């Protein structure tokens, strides 16, 4: 068993890089483990662990030792027309109990009747401070405090003092966003958009970075988060449009008459596809990064399920890969923040492009 594993180690190591093979090895591992011990197969499901890691939840779950969960329960805020507003701690329904007619089903809050049966007629609006919300708020408080401190230094020091401390870290980033994102894409009007571009950049960046801390939630890898940012971007783009932009969509210049009718829906769709692409890009990148890191960690337990020796043996390799991906993720945290900001600036720039450069379309 061990020798077989050692022989297949390099092959496995490479196949790990191809994520598509992940499911195969997981399935393989499960098969083996079911053959050996039935109990382990029941308790260990890598796909479920990964999904739990990247999904939103009502608690910060760190570990389960035996039957005991080490987790910070978060407040649940639900509203329904029938029952009104209800606020309580998730800790009260954590273990599947019913509290005030609410119950947690697979982490989702549902309304139940007196008998404990799910009431389908009650439409619940869940405004809970989930771990994504809580983490995002904490990250934003951190961001605001940091930035206000930096701003205070600027106000106190004025233009004649060289930046010091954290200010020195932030200043190149701000000037980068201004000189590499704002100015080239927005031209003379860049100053008007700088607060938005800087906010969106640091908003994404701080959530990306905080999300990389082990045990934290995957805020930027959540479709809701990116959806909000993309919608805001769409609104900013739409408010920046000029006559020339709409003219371009509803009467594309330089094409035959009939082609115009094909192009109009395409161009119109493009207006919405651009922010949608922003949404998917950030979401997919962050989710993928988190999945890869979780996978590498879980490989130890997958092999551990096969045999303890394999698990321990693979641990160093797994850690090595995890560290490698972690570094890449730190890079990705910055790159994705930059790409989102830059593309938003590009789209705004396109929306307010004047009629002067008709030459290149």
């Amino acid at each position: 068993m061990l020798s077989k594993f050692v022989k297949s180690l390099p092959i496995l190591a490479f196949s790990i890089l191809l994520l598509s093979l992940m499911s195969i090895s997981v399935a393989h591992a499960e098969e083996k483990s079911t053959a050996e011990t039935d109990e382990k197969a029941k308790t260990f499901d890598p796909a479920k662990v990964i999904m739990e890691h990247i999904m939103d939840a009502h608690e910060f779950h760190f570990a389960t030792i035996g039957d005991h969960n080490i987790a910070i329960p978060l407040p649940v805020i639900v509203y329904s027309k029938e029952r009104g507003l209800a606020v309580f701690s998730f800790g009260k329904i954590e273990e599947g109990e019913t509290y005030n007619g609410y119950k947690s089903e697979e982490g989702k809050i549902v309304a139940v009747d007196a008998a404990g049966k799910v009431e389908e007629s009650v439409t619940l609006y869940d405004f809970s401070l989930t771990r994504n919300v809580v983490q995002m708020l904490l990250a934003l408080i951190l961001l605001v405090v940091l930035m206000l401190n930096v701003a205070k230094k600027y106000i106190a020091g004025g233009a004649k003092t060289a930046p010091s401390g954290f200010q020195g870290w932030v200043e190149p980033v701000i000037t980068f966003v201004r000189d590499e994102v704002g100015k080239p894409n927005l031209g003379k009007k860049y100053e008007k958009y700088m607060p938005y571009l800087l906010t969106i950049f640091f908003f994404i960046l701080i959530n990306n970075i905080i999300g990389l801390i082990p045990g934290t939630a995957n805020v930027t890898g959540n479709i809701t988060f990116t959806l909000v940012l993309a919608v805001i971007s769409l609104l900013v783009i739409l408010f920046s449009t000029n006559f020339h932009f709409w003219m371009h969509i509803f009467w594309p210049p330089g094409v035959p008459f009939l082609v115009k009718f094909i192009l109009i829906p395409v161009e119109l769709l493009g207006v919405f596809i651009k922010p949608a692409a922003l949404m998917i890009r950030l979401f997919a990148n962050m989710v993928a990064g988190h999945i890869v890191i979780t996978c590498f960690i879980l490989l130890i337990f997958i092999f551990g399920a096969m045999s303890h020796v394999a698990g321990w043996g693979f641990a160093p390799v797994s850690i090595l890969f995890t560290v490698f991906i972690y570094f890449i993720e730190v890079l990705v945290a910055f790159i994705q923040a930059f790409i989102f900001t830059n593309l938003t600036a590009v789209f705004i720039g396109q929306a307010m492009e004047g009629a002067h450069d008709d030459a290149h379309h």
Partner: protein
Amino acid sequence: MELLQPGLGLLVWTLLAFLIVFYILKKFAWKPILATLKERETGIADAIASAEKIKIEMAQMKNENEAILQKAREERATVLKEAKEQSDKMIGEAKDKAKAEYDKILADAQLAIQQQKNEALTEVKNQVGTLVIEVATQVLRRELANKAEQETFIEQVVKSAKLN
């Protein structure tokens, strides 16, 4: 798939959080930071521009100074030359004057000598006249006894008179 379903709660909270953070940062962070950065950059640009300007001005001033110096040198040369000419002229004039004076003095002296000579001659002539008259008187007084002797005597007198 649940992963792709937006959650209402998170959506509302994210939107709210973004708007609040945007407002706070825009008003209290980005505004002063960007303003200060801009001020600093324009300050640096101005400083460089003014340094460049001063450099040009300095160069100009140097050129001007050199021109002034050159002019001063030329002026000095002309002044020296003029002074030399003046002094030469003055010396020449003085010489001429001295020579004229000398000539004049010489002429005066000669004139005086001539005058004195003439006076002396006149006196001599007068004296000779007187002498002649005296001699004639004496001769006449000797009564003209000897004709030959008389002639000799007259000759003698005349001779002596001619010597003067």
